[in-house]
């Protein structure tokens, strides 16, 4: 009886334990412990601080809006099973298996998406980083050079002669040799 009571109390404490996170623009977010610990960085910081109760962390590299989105993702995925780390991402289908809810979540303008990816990298959240990079990968996949430039607003910084030279080197990528990524499964 006492054993159960103790465990119950610890559980309650853990659930009740929250972390206060401050963004670069001084916005404060209070989130439960387990959601915050999806970020390895925060998890390590808490461990360093020692006291698990009412820890306060400040993140000078992440703005408030982005932090809000990141925490939203963490909340959405708080019940996910722990991930098996991928040594080498599979080429063929990997970019297609983004969950629908993640697709919805990341259906944002480029700037926000990129900032989220950077934040995920900084906060060391592998799943969010994976999903984010896959989304960007999908934006690139299968597109010609002009299309890629159009999507990302990249300015062509080659002179026409240089362009021609490089194009000659890449002639082998003409459409008739291009195989759909579906068929390239190896």
């Amino acid at each position: 009886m006492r054993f159960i009571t103790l465990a119950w109390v610890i559980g309650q404490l853990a659930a009740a334990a929250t972390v206060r996170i401050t963004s670069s623009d001084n916005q404060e977010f209070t989130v439960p412990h387990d959601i915050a610990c999806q970020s390895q960085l925060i998890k390590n910081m808490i461990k360093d601080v020692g006291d698990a109760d009412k820890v306060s962390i400040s993140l000078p590299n992440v703005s408030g809006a982005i932090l809000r989105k990141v925490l939203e993702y963490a909340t959405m995925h708080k019940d996910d099973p722990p991930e098996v780390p991928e040594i080498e991402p599979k080429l063929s289908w990997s970019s297609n298996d983004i969950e629908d809810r993640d697709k919805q979540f990341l259906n944002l303008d480029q700037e926000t998406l990129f900032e989220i990816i950077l934040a995920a990298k900084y906060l060391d959240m592998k799943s969010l980083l994976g999903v984010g990079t896959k989304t960007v990968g999908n934006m690139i996949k299968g597109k010609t050079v002009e299309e890629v430039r159009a999507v990302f607003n990249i300015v062509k910084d080659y002179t026409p002669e240089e362009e021609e030279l490089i194009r000659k080197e890449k002639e082998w990528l003409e459409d008739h040799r291009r195989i759909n990524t579906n068929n390239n499964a190896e």
Partner: protein
Amino acid sequence: MAPAALIDQLFPTEVLIAVFKLVDERDRCRLCTVNQRWKRVLYNAPELWKRLDLSNRCTLGGDKFIEHLDHIKNTNNLLSSLFSQQQQTSSPYASLSQQPSVTRFSRITRMDLSCTGIDIDFFSQSYVAYTLSTSLTHLILSGCPLVTSGSLFNLKSLKSLTYLDISHCDNVDDLGLEVLSFFVTWLQELNLAYLFKITEHGIKKLFRMVGLRALNLLGCCRVKSYPWAITNAVPKSPLQLRELSIGEDSRIQTRGFWLLWCTWQHWDMKKLSDICPFLETIRLNMVLFDLPPQGLQILLDECKHLKTLCLVIERNTIPTLCSVAEQLRNLKMLDLTVHIGVQGEQMESLLAANALPKLKALKFHSKHTDVFTDDSLKTLTTQAPSMEYLELNGDNLDSSAMIPVVERLSTTLQSLLLHHVKLSNNAMRAIAKKCKTLRDLTISDLQVDVKGTVPQRCGVNGVTERVLATTEREKYKHGLGAANKLKWLVSDPSICMRLKKIELASYTGFSDKDLACIPTACTNLQWVDFHFSFTFPKTLVALSKHCPNLLYLRLFHSNPPAFYDAESPTPSRASVSATSATPTTGAPNASQRRPSSAHSSANRIAFLQAAQSARLSTSSRTSPFMASLYGDTSRVNVASKRDRRRGSGRKSVSSDVPRVSIAQSVVESSKKGNPATAKGKSKAVYKCSSPEGQALISFSLGSEVKKNASDVPVPLFNKKLRVLDLSGNHGLSDYILSSAFAEGLTNLHTLFLEGCDDGLTESGVVKFAEKRWKTLKRMHLRNCRGVALNVVQENFLSKSLEIDVVVDGGRVRNLD
């Protein structure tokens, strides 16, 4: 200067590399040209360039003149430029080549150069050798025509090479193997499949390579005897061989080629197990030999590490298999091909002995070998739950026998071949929904379920009973019709995306409209083989619109054989040539749409009837060309009738002349009179009045398809099609062949035509060959009575255009 793009501003290099890792190699190469920063990032990240794939593997055997004619696509040049180290300081583009691009390949592990014109001198060059010698482990040179025995010497600089694939390189012979054994002694895995010149003497030399662990000798038809049997001396120490594949690759046994069997002499199982005691995998695909009763026992006893076994079993082998059942159970993988003569009881004895738990593939030599009943099939799938390849003959199977099979094998089955199996709609639906990994599907002699029952009120009490559906209309009404059956097959979207190869054949009960639902749904199809008793206009159009990856297409259109009962709606015609089925639509101008009749060409009669109906219908264009056509074609009818009666159309040159000129005038006048061939348009539009012909035209020229709603429509020509096989009368005529096919099928390297009697003459064939000679490798014509190539034309085709032409089984030879 314009501000840098957002992605460049925000993303550090490592994040960009993480994104690039998710994109496939070809896209990565393209991305090098986006801007300078991306190029720098890509060039400096050797971990992105671990694999280099320049192969033409989607070409089904290699394109013709891959690179001789086209300097830019030449693999040698390309590789030289990719690996170039020299800084071009003299050129004005010095700033561009600051970074030698060879450093990005410093960690390359695998290079695939199959079916390219690579000259392996490339690997001897110092900078290449320097870069590749420490990292390259896998090299694939399958099907490269310039790989010769002597040139294999150049591979000696690749010191880390463990896997070499030189299959299908026809010029390699025993000398090449000797060269390898002297100079590239560190190889571990060697693939020598389908090298027709090597013999057992060459293979014996290979055993100088102490580290050789895997050897693939499929299809080496000159290796007639067991390599070690030719020397009586036993080698000093046992070989390290772990994997041995002998025989024929059963996947290459396509229709039209008789199954090649390997018969070996001096087979000595004891000697094999003495010499190679460490064997883990032995594949004896299609190898037919008298397995001595203890042979299999010896093999399983002596080779203690044996994990994978592929065998041919026949009547006499089965008792042996039953006796070694326990050892078979301890294997990891078993693959059996059942020869003719095995009976159902023998199969049941195998099942009773529980010899088959590790069965991964079950193939049959002949599709008429019928060994399974419902119960034995169920037992098989219970005992062998990890089957990947299953071939069945279903004479004794019930229509719902497949349902428990696919349920059991749902996560493993990849290829399913069903011959003469009755499939109920539920079975079709089960196949579609349950098979999560199915990629190839073959159903020959697909039948409409003859035992379908429908509810029907009968009797005074109004009791609803289920009775056999008797009329077609009843069947259709209750969803038992043919249309539904095919629809059930493609009802699940995931199987439609996964299916790459499909073969369907049936004599009765289906129509073109039903069949067209398959290409519409399965957009990843690469290999299509349809054998039905109707022509395929709607299917062709569906294929051209929805299947951009199609590589192989075979359409067979024939009469149902005489013994089939008249349940089919197809009326049979008493005519010599293959004829069409009922018209696909019940349009009032049905007579106009019949593509052929016994006595005249398809196209011409179509024009004739078009002219007739043009005169009769209200919206007709009585343009002058139609009238002249009518007049001309009547003359043609007579001429061709006379030819038929004469019997041999081949040698009579005089009869060719009016036919050719008529054909030409038909072509010209149709072009003149056709309002759609406008001068202003860049793309020519060809028209043909028969729906079959029109379907062929639209198939070859493709249609425009939009990828997304916002994108610019992309013309979807059938550029990838490599093999086209048309049997029976599909409405193909000279006009279509020389115009639409020549323009649209730009990568076709093999054309098989059989029975295209009407409308096809040698002029169309020659014109097509002239236009497409750069890609066309071979053309086989059978029973095309209108085609009579004279000697000059034959010479032209085979010598000047270098096309392999076979007419009625006889190869057209050069004069010298």
